[in-house]
């Protein structure tokens, strides 16, 4: 059912969902991200990698709206969103997960997913208090959608469980389900395999492709686990000290000397990305 997981060379020819155009961020004298231009084509899995302190997270935060770039712009679906508030970005179809899981711990799995439908729901105070027919319909649909999404990520049985009581792996899945509830066009995953064992990471690759194909979303991945990155991505962008040092297919990146240098150092000492 899932499409072949091999990389697709024509990824760049597809229209872009998200574009970062010459984005630079300075914190005082420190240039955290230096003139990075970057595209997520539609229906593609793109990875952003780099050693620690390369500016990945800062760049990610520009995309999600937590930081505003010192210069450059960010386009989403042909619209300039450089200065758009995070919740607006979420509402127009930009969803993310968090590196260190940030679920609503004292809400059930189902409620967690339903929170993300906020922007797509309409009912206000009066409709809710009077339980108007359209409000009830909306709630029912929201419940159903939430259950479907939980089923989709494989934790359908946990809908009534508080998020904090879920196992670590299920919490990661719940984060994805919650992000998908935004009906996103692009899904940004911040180190999704952190804390997973090799077995789980391997299954994760399959899962990302299933999400891409069945939910019709593009995926941006920030990841440390190279085996996952190489298997899952169609395009890879490498950052080092705020600069974009390589961009291309996994094969090209693997072959790039600059990337090897950035990761391993010139002397061949093995760095560690944790």
């Amino acid at each position: 059912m899932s499409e072949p997981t091999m990389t697709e060379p024509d990824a760049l020819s597809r229209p872009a969902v998200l574009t970062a155009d010459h984005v630079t961020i300075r914190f005082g004298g420190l240039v955290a991200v230096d003139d990075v231009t970057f595209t997520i084509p539609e229906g593609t899995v793109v990875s952003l990698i780099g050693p620690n302190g390369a500016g990945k997270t800062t760049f990610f935060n520009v995309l999600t709206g937590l930081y505003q770039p010192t210069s450059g712009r960010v386009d989403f679906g042909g619209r300039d969103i450089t200065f758009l508030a995070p919740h607006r970005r979420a509402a127009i179809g930009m969803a993310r997960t968090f590196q260190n899981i940030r679920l609503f711990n004292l809400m059930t799995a189902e409620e967690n997913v339903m929170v993300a439908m906020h922007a797509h729901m309409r009912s206000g105070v009066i409709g809710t208090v009077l339980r108007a027919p359209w409000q009830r319909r909306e709630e029912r649909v929201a419940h159903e959608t939430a259950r479907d999404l939980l089923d989709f990520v494989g934790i359908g049985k946990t809908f009534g469980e508080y998020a904090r009581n879920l196992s670590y792996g299920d919490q990661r899945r719940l984060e994805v389900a919650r992000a998908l509830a935004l009906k996103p066009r692009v899904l940004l995953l911040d180190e999704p395999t952190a804390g997973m064992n090799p077995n789980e990471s391997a299954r994760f690759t399959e899962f990302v492709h299933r999400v891409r194909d069945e939910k019709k979303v593009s995926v941006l991945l920030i990841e440390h686990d190279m085996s996952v990155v190489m298997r899952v991505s169609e395009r890879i962008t490498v950052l080092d000290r705020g600069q974009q040092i390589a961009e291309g297919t996994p094969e090209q990146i693997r072959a790039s000397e600059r990337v090897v240098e950035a990761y391993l150092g010139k002397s061949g000492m093995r760095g560690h990305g944790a």
Partner: protein
Amino acid sequence: MVGAVLRGLRVRSWPLGFTAAAVIVYFFYDRILPNLDNSVQSGFQNWLPIGTITYCLVWVMLALGLNIVVGYAGLLDLGYVAFWAIGGYTAAWLMSTFAFDKQIHFSFLAPNGYNHAVGIHISFWIVLVVGALFCALWGALIGAPTLRLRSDYLAIVTLGFGEIIPQFFRNGESIFGQNISNGTKGITPLDPIGTGPLSPVLGGKAVLGPFDLIDKYLIFVVLAAICMFVSLRIRSGRLGRAWLAIREDELAASMMGVPLMRTKLAAYAVGAFFGGIGGVAFASYNSSTIPTFSFSDSITILLMVVVGGMGNVWGVTIGALVISWINLKGLSQFGDWFNGQFSTHVNFPSYNFLIFGIILVLMMLFRREGILPESRTRQLLKEPSRTEMESVGADIEAAEVESELVEDIAPEFAVQSETETLGSGE
């Protein structure tokens, strides 16, 4: 399965219980008490008169309003009394002869006998809605600049507004030459509650005088019930979920498309709306609005929410009833009894904040989640989360592996290593 049924029962049994209690109180005071022995009558008159119950219900409305802001949305508001004051003055402006010196004569659905008097005279029921809406508007106005702040800073600024607004009314005899509040004298008397079409239910009276306590009780119990109903309904809807999400994790909520400002403003406005209802009801109950609103009222209301159980409507209701009763009757009655028994002269009511402080400290030590906590909060305080336990489990496993290794290599260090890992695990 059984658990689900029980939970279903419990959800329904609270509103039923409240209704039953309200009805029982009504019949007891209306039918049974007058026929009882004189000493019993005077006992109830001293310890729990119907007027006090009615007054306690005003505190319930206020506490339920603050519960929306503090309990539901997790925004610490130390100036909630501002909305009580605004509601009170709205009632005073619209239901008295106060506007007379401004040459305003207006009446709308006012009870007979008051509709041709000077000043503004509008039906209590309309003023209730107008006052609540006016408060909601002020909630949004105060919220707009302050809600960008977080936690402690928000608390301090709300504290400021809670001081500013009562002060404004206290000194409002000449605001740009206009007297808007009568200063420290306050505005009195207010029009009584007109019964209108409810007249047959309330014994055929056109207006409720100062001695129609049982009728006022009925009205206030219905108002409190409306506040509970609205609280519960909103909680289970889209907005309620968004509030919870903000309380849990603001950043994550905004990343999931919840507009923080608008959602927090909604919490403020709804909370202020309840405050307005309480304010109008209180003013009407006293037939006056006098600027006695102070910081200690804000704290008392907050205490009700915290002691009752933040976020749980029933807990907050119980907290409000108990604390307001202690404040109004309990302490002074206990003091009289105590002084009479031991011929002392302790002024118990003046120690109320000492006693509340002790209650709060004891609660924080032994029952942090309140008398009747929300099931979620209880979870947080009573049980470690599974992931926490798992990580502890992992640590123990790691420690075991490590100690085994150490035992293999250098047995003399084994015990020391184990205690070290245990220490670091805490």
